[in-house]
């Protein structure tokens, strides 16, 4: 009999100690079944991995002011203060029509180029109720150079000023610290220098980031041009950067062999030979302005 009472006491006291934990377990059970898909965020810090676009969009209702700057080549030596005396700049505005659709415009001092683009997020990486292994976006731009004609005496067409680039952006955030993106790209130039030059250039980009703290990451990017005369004449674009995030700003400090900052320029027209020391230091700064609050 005392044994039974002792047993009952144990059973009941066990019950009260466990009650809150059991209740929490019950709650977890109730809520785990109907959870919504949880979308991956912050695959990259900025809308550019370094030179090329990332799958990140400027959020809906936000305006992103992007200042991109490349110094001269470091192998220009002391006289040019290792490239710092020279500067090439692109000013850009990027607006989030929605979280998925971005429109942007920009002006580069390099080849006096205007550009405009659209970027649309087709798939979003997610876990939970719906599982999607990667984020997929499509990006397409058009650029117009406003350089004076090199041969003004011959008949020149406005369409000859135009170049285009289209990329599919396929990215996966493998972990909090590591993200990778593949960027199959197509560049079209309406006018090229000689008959032998390609109007169409195909390339595959690969870019990634490793986070070293919550606010700092190291990014790398490489665009491989498929074999052709253009690949023989130019170099593949390569870049390495450190991204630092502070409040509404993202700073990217980089070294690259590309001078141009829009896709047709760095994918198909990179002239810097890394092995020769043709490296440009540069930075991107982006500042977000919230125009429309949620």
């Amino acid at each position: 009999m005392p044994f039974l009472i002792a047993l009952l006491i144990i059973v009941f006291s066990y019950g009260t100690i466990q009650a809150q934990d059991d209740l929490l377990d019950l709650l977890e059970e109730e809520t785990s079944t109907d959870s919504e898909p949880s979308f991956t965020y912050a695959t990259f810090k900025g809308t550019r991995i370094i030179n090329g676009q990332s799958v990140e969009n400027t959020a809906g209702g936000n305006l992103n002011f992007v200042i991109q700057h490349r110094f001269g080549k470091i192998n220009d030596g002391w006289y040019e203060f290792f490239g710092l005396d020279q500067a090439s700049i692109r000013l850009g505005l990027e607006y989030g029509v929605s979280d998925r659709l971005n429109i942007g415009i920009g002006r580069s001092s390099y080849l006096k180029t205007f550009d405009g683009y659209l970027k649309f997020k087709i798939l979003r990486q997610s876990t939970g109720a719906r599982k999607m292994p990667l984020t997929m976006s499509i990006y397409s731009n058009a650029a117009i150079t406003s350089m004076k004609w090199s041969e003004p005496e011959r008949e020149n067409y406005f369409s000859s000023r135009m170049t285009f680039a289209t990329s599919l952006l396929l990215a996966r955030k493998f972990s909090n610290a590591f993200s990778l993106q593949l960027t199959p790209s197509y560049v079209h130039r309406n006018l090229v220098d000689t008959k032998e030059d390609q109007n169409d250039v195909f390339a595959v980009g690969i870019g990634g980031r490793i986070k070293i703290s919550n606010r700092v990451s190291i990014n790398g990017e490489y665009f491989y041009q498929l074999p052709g005369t253009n690949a023989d004449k130019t170099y593949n674009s390569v870049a390495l950067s450190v991204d630092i995030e502070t409040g509404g700003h993202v700073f990217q400090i980089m070294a690259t062999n590309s001078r141009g900052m829009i896709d047709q320029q760095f994918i198909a027209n990179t002239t810097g030979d890394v092995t020769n020391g043709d490296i440009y230091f540069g930075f991107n700064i982006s500042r977000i302005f919230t125009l429309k609050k949620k």
Partner: protein
Amino acid sequence: MKKLILTTILLIIFSGIVSAQGKFFTRTGSIRFYSETPVENIEAVNTQASSIFDTDNGDIVLSVQMIGFEFEKALMQEHFNENYVESEKFPKSTFKGRIVDYDQSIFSGASKAEVTVEGELTIHGVTKNIQTVATVQKTDDKIQAHAEFEVKVADYNIKIPNAVINNIAESILVTVDLNMEPYNK
């Protein structure tokens, strides 16, 4: 003797059933937080908090997905998840506790009853004991609960960088509103 054992077993079984009937549940609870500084005020709300309240013993538990907090500015939301509460590492915040000196008669009147709630609050992987005053009221077949309390950011090992130290309050006001229905299962 056999009768006693039988009665005890029956009692245990029945007490189980009774307590199941005494549970109230919601998965659309609202949790709001508010940070006030001279520089800016930051507010976020999550309307998908889930909670179970056991009217038999006054036990209450809450659970909320950190990623579900919605901010006015998209960038704030990203920073909240990415830099401050680290939602990927610590996806949920939970509370498990009870009403102090619980007495079922608080639900007998039509007016709001003021109670003290205490228990363990877990945010960002850190668990602290908290105590707060809450109001509860039973109307028709539902229970409404409301509570406000302050959470010190530093207590939960959430680091604020110097650059934005003036933008985020040291102490965040958290408001909880639950509208709970009987839990049938």
